[in-house]
């Protein structure tokens, strides 16, 4: 692996390369831009037309609100019941067949794909999104002896960041979790990892935790 000196110029040069978007990144964002650019072109049209459209929308929305007012309470109650059911189902399934879901006991839905970021973020707690933070949490869980949580966090990391720069660290932490859980062949996995990554900073921990 290419070495990087610990001075500003070398770190900056390294960052310029490391943080460059891949061709897939460029193409994906370009593709995502199609819709907003199309609407941007539309917005340059006659303002009168948009004012009329807006007026119709406001009147229509007001009418719909009035019509739906009586139904809203019942709908809200139904939605709350649905939510309880959707949360309870995976928990119940997990309890019934724990061997089928050894890592995640509650289904963790990925965030919906967006073409535009929603403007105001809610004040409620949001799911952790920083990939480094996920790795830190997994590491902390391992150091606390909580292999199950570590595996869950690492699985989440793999789902959210499949092409992470830190895939090697994730793999090493996953093996540490396997060793901590006394999983079969965890020692073999650790030996193979160390052979393939002789410079990994986690090799000592692997040797120690997996008793190599």
């Amino acid at each position, binding site marked *: *692996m*290419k*070495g*990087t*000196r*610990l*001075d*500003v*110029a*070398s*770190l*900056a040069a*390294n*960052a*310029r*390369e*490391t*943080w*460059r*978007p891949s061709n897939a*990144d*460029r193409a*994906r*964002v*370009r593709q*995502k*831009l199609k819709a*907003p*650019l199309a609407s*941007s072109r539309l917005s*340059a049209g006659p303002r009168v037309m948009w004012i009329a459209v807006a007026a119709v929308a406001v009147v229509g929305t007001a009418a719909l609100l009035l019509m739906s007012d009586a139904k809203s309470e019942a709908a809200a109650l139904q939605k709350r019941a649905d939510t309880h059911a959707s949360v309870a189902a995976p928990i119940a399934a997990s309890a019934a067949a724990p061997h089928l879901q050894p890592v995640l006991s509650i289904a963790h839905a990925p*965030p919906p794909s*967006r*073409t*535009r*970021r929603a*403007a*105001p*973020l809610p*004040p409620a*707690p*949001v799911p952790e*999104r*920083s*990939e*480094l*933070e996920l790795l*830190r949490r997994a590491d902390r869980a391992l150091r606390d002896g909580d292999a199950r949580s570590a595996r869950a966090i690492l699985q989440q990391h793999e789902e*959210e*960041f499949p092409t992470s*720069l*830190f895939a*090697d660290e994730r793999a090493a932490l996953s093996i540490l979790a396997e060793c901590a859980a006394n999983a079969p062949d965890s020692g073999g996995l650790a030996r193979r990892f160390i052979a393939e990554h002789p*410079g*990994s*900073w986690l090799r000592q921990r692997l040797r120690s935790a997996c008793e190599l």
Partner: protein
Amino acid sequence: MDVAVRTEAASEQEFPDSNDRALSFDEVYEMHVDLVWRGARALGVLANDLDDVVQDVFVVVHRKLGAFEHRSSIKTWITGVLVNEVRRYRRQLPRTQVQDVLAIELPSEVDPHRALESAFAADLLARIVASLSDDTREVFVLSEIEGLTMPAIAESLSINLSTAYSRLRLAKQQVERHLERVRCQITRSER
């Protein structure tokens, strides 16, 4: 070409670059997407939000390119748009996430071999840059990572040149202090 006519033509997704050659939006995108992507990341946009912020920048570029008057280079102009969009993004982040992004947590044990790996080095720089104040971070990223000239940075950030130099000097001092701590950790690990 008459300025008014040229501006009219520009609204049809084309505008002249500094050499007065008409560029399509696609060309502008290809020329500057690396700057926008990398700059957004370095300025503290979370990995999961990069697509959205880069997209936001180019939507603004697309909307305003017809009015671009060439008082600065296109790169300087796009950099200004990028900085504004990142500021807007960061204002929307929940406080806990801002703290998370800003939390500089150097590893407790630094493996001397690991310190030379590029992923570790990039992560280290990201954490150090995140620990800077917003003002100094912007100048540091644009100067040291993106290689913009100081006059271009001052223009992008709408600050005067002496302020830009002062912020860069402060940022470099702070970065150097962090690096010195890491070097000390490595030296201790090597003993």
